């Protein structure tokens, strides 16, 4: 690996192209457009090959040249390279020839894809000299910042909506982070954090560190392509909160294609939302290239962002690739969770239920053709959102430790099945 060599050139405004130094800054001074890392692809081409990647450890840093750190990563060295599961039973149920599950429900260390972005953001924060890190979060990001900061010896402040799932709150507190519950929804937490970030000298992973943070999501797409045998999937279904993951998986396909690591085959990017927070999917279905903010009301709290920062770019990616979008109700989300669990033995959080539910709709409507192949991105673990499914997964049946009672129970069930 090219040690201690940076492949980053600058930060650049996605709107007007104005360039900035590689500091902790995220917004163009001229039009508020988001800043993005620019790489030296010529230098990367000489360093990143299939062979060099395959020779490295199985984690997200095997694609290090395409991730925005100057030296070796210091936080989250073990993150990523989660399993890509061939989901034959779910494929049959949904009516598609071939289906894959990219399973970040078991990402290391906090069981969501957020470990990817946090690993990058905190490694870069350390490079830039920060000792306190922070985030605004719907839960998973808070868990990951808290855990990775603890492991790196950094001080952490995480800001979350006060009504988050119990599991996600405990999963931040246990690492000793300062957890601040805000009485409001995520967009309000975000607004407060934007104001806090301007005031204190902290590395806010999704505010002033956002250009670096967001790039971490590309690693999910790099892995998908490598694990499919160095090819781009025909269809990828991705859950959308801010829309950042969707745009970055698309970018990962563009980059591998540009570097000649995969053939430039056609791909379609599809976005999934909950009906209770569907600003992007509603706009996509109406053929609009802008979205109207909404006030979220859904059990998919990790996707409950009513003013999605990358909504505009997500719409553009779906349009350019010929992809589609849809949204599902709370009941359909629970059904999606159960379907994935019963067919594949994977317990996803509510966002996973959204992805499975939307994939089902897109396949049923022919927007993803039955003869094609698709990848579903599962981004978080069901153990964190038990509250959402507690009343819809059935109940244990209790008996005394008696063989007769057990046989009685089976007989009753057989009778019920025949009836």
């Amino acid at each position: 690996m090219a040690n201690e060599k940076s492949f980053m050139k600058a930060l650049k405004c996605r709107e007007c192209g104005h360039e900035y130094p590689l500091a902790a800054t995220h917004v163009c001074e001229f039009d508020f457009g988001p800043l993005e890392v620019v790489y030296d692809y010529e230098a990367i081409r000489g360093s990143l090959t299939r062979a060099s990647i395959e020779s490295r450890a199985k984690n997200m840093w095997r694609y290090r040249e395409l991730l925005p750190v100057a030296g070796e990563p210091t936080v989250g060295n073990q993150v990523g390279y989660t399993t890509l599961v061939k989901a034959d039973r779910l494929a049959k149920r949904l009516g598609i020839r071939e289906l894959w599950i990219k399973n970040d429900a078991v990402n290391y260390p906090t069981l969501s894809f957020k470990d990817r972005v946090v690993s990058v953001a905190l490694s870069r924060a350390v490079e830039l000299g920060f000792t306190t890190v922070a985030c605004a979060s719907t839960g998973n990001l808070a868990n990951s910042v808290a855990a990775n900061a603890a492991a790196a010896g950094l001080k952490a402040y995480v800001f979350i909506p006060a009504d988050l799932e119990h599991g996600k709150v405990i999963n931040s507190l246990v690492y000793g982070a300062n957890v601040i519950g805000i009485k409001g929804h995520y967009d309000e937490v975000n607004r407060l954090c934007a104001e806090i970030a301007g005031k204190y000298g902290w590395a806010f992973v999704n505010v002033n560190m956002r250009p670096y943070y967001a790039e971490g999501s590309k690693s999910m797409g790099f892995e998908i392509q490598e694990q499919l045998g160095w090819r781009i999937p025909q269809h990828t279904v991705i859950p959308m909160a801010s829309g950042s993951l969707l745009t970055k998986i698309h970018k990962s396909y563009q980059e591998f294609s540009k570097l000649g690591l995969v053939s430039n085959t056609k791909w379609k990017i599809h976005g999934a939302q909950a009906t209770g927070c569907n600003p992007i999917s509603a706009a996509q279905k109406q053929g609009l290239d802008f979205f109207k903010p909404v006030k979220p009301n859904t059990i998919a709290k990790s996707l409950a962002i009513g003013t999605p920062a990358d909504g505009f770019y997500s719409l553009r990616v779906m349009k350019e690739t010929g992809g589609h979008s849809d949204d599902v109700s709370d009941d359909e989300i629970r059904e999606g969770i159960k379907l994935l669990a019963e067919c594949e033995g994977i317990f996803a959080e509510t966002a996973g239920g959204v992805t499975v539910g939307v994939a089902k709709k897109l396949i049923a409507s022919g927007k993803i053709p039955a003869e094609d192949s698709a990848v579903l991105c599962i981004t978080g673990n069901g153990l964190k959102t038990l509250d959402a499914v507690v009343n819809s997964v059935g109940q244990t049946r209790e008996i005394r430790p008696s063989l007769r009672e057990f046989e009685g129970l089976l007989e009753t069930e057989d009778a019920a099945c025949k009836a």
Partner: protein
Amino acid sequence: MPVNIRIPTPLRKLTNNEEVVEVTANTIGGAINELQSRYPGIQERLLDENGGVRRFVNVYVNEEDIRFLQNKETPLKDGDEVSIIPAIAGG
């Protein structure tokens, strides 16, 4: 009592590093005009070529996004707090 506008970091070069600026306008549009007359150049940072609020600029009156109110026509009254904030990624 006038209206307070909180100026975000990327715009403070234009406001001589003032974090909070007082205006007396009756609407958001009027407030932006007033800012422009005092800090020339600030309007084009906030508004696009058609005069609408730029795609990545969020404006809040007393913590409510003006897109849920009346956008640039949103009325202002004494004591209101206006925040101008860039869009943020999340999760």
